[in-house]
């Protein structure tokens, strides 16, 4: 049974889809080096880095934008 008009009543339900499995490289953030500039939070296409700079690996696709945009190189991309 498909919902009427194939509407989806559960907001944000793509969370069921763990895109972390798409990843080849994994960002590792060194909180000691981090200067709290929010660049990585802002630029993450998945929105999966929170204000405490914890990365949600369930969804991180490993694009590497965060590492690229970190002004102090606090994020390293490591092979899964």
């Amino acid at each position, binding site marked *: 049974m498909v919902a009427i008009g194939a509407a989806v009543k559960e*907001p944000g339900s*793509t969370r069921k889809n763990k895109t972390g499995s798409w990843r080849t490289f994994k960002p590792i953030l060194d909180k000691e080096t981090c200067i709290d500039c929010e660049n990585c939070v802002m630029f993450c296409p998945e929105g999966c880095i929170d204000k405490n700079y914890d990365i949600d690996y369930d969804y991180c696709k490993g*694009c590497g934008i965060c*590492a690229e945009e970190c002004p102090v190189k606090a994020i390293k991309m490591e092979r899964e």
Partner: protein
Amino acid sequence: MELPEKEFLAPGHRACAGCGATIGVRLALKMLGENTVAVSATGCLEVITTPYPETAWEIPWMHVAFENAAAVASGVESALKAQGKTDTNVVVFGGDGGTADIGLQALSGAMERGHNLIYICYDNEAYMNTGIQRSGATPYGASTTTSPHGKESFGEDKPKKNMPMIMAAHGIPYVATASISYPEDFMKKVKKAAEVDGPAYIHLQQPCTTGWGYSPAKTIDLGRLAVETGSWILYEIEDGEFKVTYRPIQRKKVSEYLNAQKRFKHLSDLEKETIQSHVDAICVELKI
């Protein structure tokens, strides 16, 4: 500017790694907040965010077709008005194809009628959803699958359609260009767009890893290069008043931007010079 914490586009969506469109949507929604209804044109964004039975949207969202997002939003806005819900933002996300090409008539109608809505064109400069076909927003010299370079061709042979100025010609209260690589500038413009009474149009350039041909990590870098070289200019037109909102301190050579992308790889030095002189002409006029 304080970055609002709440996310309105959930992860788990099906965008390419390094997608620029979702960055733009995330930032825009942070500024608009939860009292917002979004309408999408058919395109990448619609397909990657709503694979039934899932949705990435945390706010009410509607999609009908490729060419009618502005008309659908007109109906949404009018209906909300009829119900006295005038404080709800209505935002439209259309790609460059859905905006500059097939959706232009509906968009023009909506702008001219003065609906209180915010139209954001997320411009990746070709039909990326269907595999990189040329759009009216594809820049001069870019190779796409329908404007390929070859023995007789250097790729797209027409300049990019000037959508923001077409919108400005409608006399709407707010028009702006933006880039995902300048988030504060973009978010300020979204806020202004939400505050004006009447239609607002923001043309957001958004690099596309797949269509432009660069490594996913470079998305923000490419957007920045476009602006730093003067290839994409950040401005706003508020009640008819034109203002450049960001000026690079030292304008970089356009070739630096072109050479970073596969879609321009085939260009000869001479063709790159032609592009440089086009950019120079505009930048000199705008004192960039």
